[in-house]
């Protein structure tokens, strides 16, 4: 229990400054948001394409399954050797980490829709774009949010690796604490990452409820 007390004391002693808890937490959140947004830009259109056309599902499932198995530290090191140190390498690795979940959420959301609903929309004379925009995207939203939620959770927990190649984030405290046997600092960093994860989860919980409510009222 003593470690926890020391960890909280460490946090309150190191809140401010360019290497303070607030700055590093903000960086960490920022990396997470950027990674998930970039992953969404790639994965959501691709997921919708696969979900709508029902083509290429096997390829997407297999390749995103394989991407999930990529060890992120290895990817960070590999891209670090290509791009040099800094934010770019961990960012690429985190985007690669986030893509499979977002992709799965996007196509599964559309795939889960009753084909009769889509057929009915088509029978009403909707174009394929209208079907996608007015039927499939709204009905698939809960599953897409679920995908974004699990992607964000993975990224927020893994963004600590950014510090491995000279970028910031809460990983700074984790690495420094580990190597200098400063376990209160290490625990503080872990607690902050957990707190961020809980906040991100909470935000998605609210978003999912709002989405579900709108789906039922329309």
């Amino acid at each position, binding site marked *: 229990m003593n470690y926890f007390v020391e960890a909280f004391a460490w946090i309150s002693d190191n809140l401010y400054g360019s290497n303070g808890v607030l700055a590093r937490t903000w960086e960490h959140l920022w990396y997470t948001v950027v990674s998930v947004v970039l992953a969404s830009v790639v994965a959501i259109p691709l997921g919708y394409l696969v979900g709508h056309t029902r083509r290429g599902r096997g390829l997407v499932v297999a390749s995103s399954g394989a991407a999930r198995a990529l060890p992120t530290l290895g990817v960070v*090191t590999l891209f*670090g*050797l290509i791009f*040099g*140190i*800094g934010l770019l390498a961990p960012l690429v690795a985190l985007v690669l980490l986030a893509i499979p979940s977002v992709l799965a959420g996007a196509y599964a959301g559309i795939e889960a829709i009753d084909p009769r609903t889509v057929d009915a929309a088509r029978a009403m004379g909707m174009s394929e774009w209208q079907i996608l925009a007015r039927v499939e995207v709204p009905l698939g939203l809960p599953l897409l949010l679920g995908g974004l939620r699990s992607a964000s959770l993975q990224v927020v927990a893994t963004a600590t690796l950014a*510090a*491995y*190649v*000279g970028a910031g984030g809460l990983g*700074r405290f984790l*690495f*420094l604490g580990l*190597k*200098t*046997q400063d376990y209160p600092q290490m625990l503080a960093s872990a607690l902050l990452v957990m707190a961020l994860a809980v906040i991100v989860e909470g935000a998605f919980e609210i978003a999912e409820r709002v989405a579900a409510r709108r789906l039922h009222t329309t």
Partner: protein
Amino acid sequence: MKTRIAAVLAAAVLALSACSSANPMGSASTAPSGSASASGGTALVIGSQQYYSNEIIAELYAQALEAKGFTITRQYQIGQREVYLPELQAGKIDLFPEYSGNLLQYLDKSATAKTGEEVLAALPAALGSSLRPLTAAAATDQDSYNVTKANADKYGLASIPDLSKVGAGLTVCANSELAKRPYGPPGLKSEYGLDVEVIPVEDSGGPLTVKALKDGDCLTADIYSADPSIAANGLVTLSDPKSLILPQNVVPIASAKVNEQAASVIDKVSGSLTTADLVSLNALSVDQQQSSAVIAKGWLTSKGLLS
């Protein structure tokens, strides 16, 4: 409901206790002491750090001892000092290649030793009664500040104090812990009056650090002196006239189970191991991806230590 909770708890306790006996070190301690070696001793457990060069040295000890009839259990790649040292102190590992200066600083935060001799002289007391250092090798593998050849020529850099010629904004690419080490920025400030900022690259002077140095992300990089990448990349190691960086002689740390006969075998290995040897051993691993067993066999054979 209550019985179900009790059952779950019992299962959890069982699972936890199963975990504790599945400790990778556990097998070492339960190694059959009955399988005594030809020379009458019991099986010796040799460990190594999670550092390829350290594993090569451990393998040198292992094969040299095996050649003399000892039975060896290998427990390589055991993390860093905070992980393996307690195992060593608990008697679960009998022999471990260590680095004199860092080991002393780890054991005794207030150590004042500066030279290689002082460090080695201070080690036995710091290790306590259960462990002892055997004869240290001439080989050293220590932190060193390196610059690119281009920057060395541009600013005229040969030693650490020369860095003052570069001006403000000095940076060093290194593991983040360098910022807290006595030979890091605190020592650079107090001994040489330099303000140096650490740019954290957490691969212990490996390829990412070298790349960052060559990319110009930092002026200097902390790289282990026995790393073949220093020569391979034409880096210039800055000399340290005030001995800020503690000498890191390779020194075997032994438990009481390592008898005089075994110690004399290891002493012969240490007696032959120079820094140049260590660099070339490391190069075989880095450049040719040879296994530690192959590298160790080749070196021991060339030194006549397997006969």
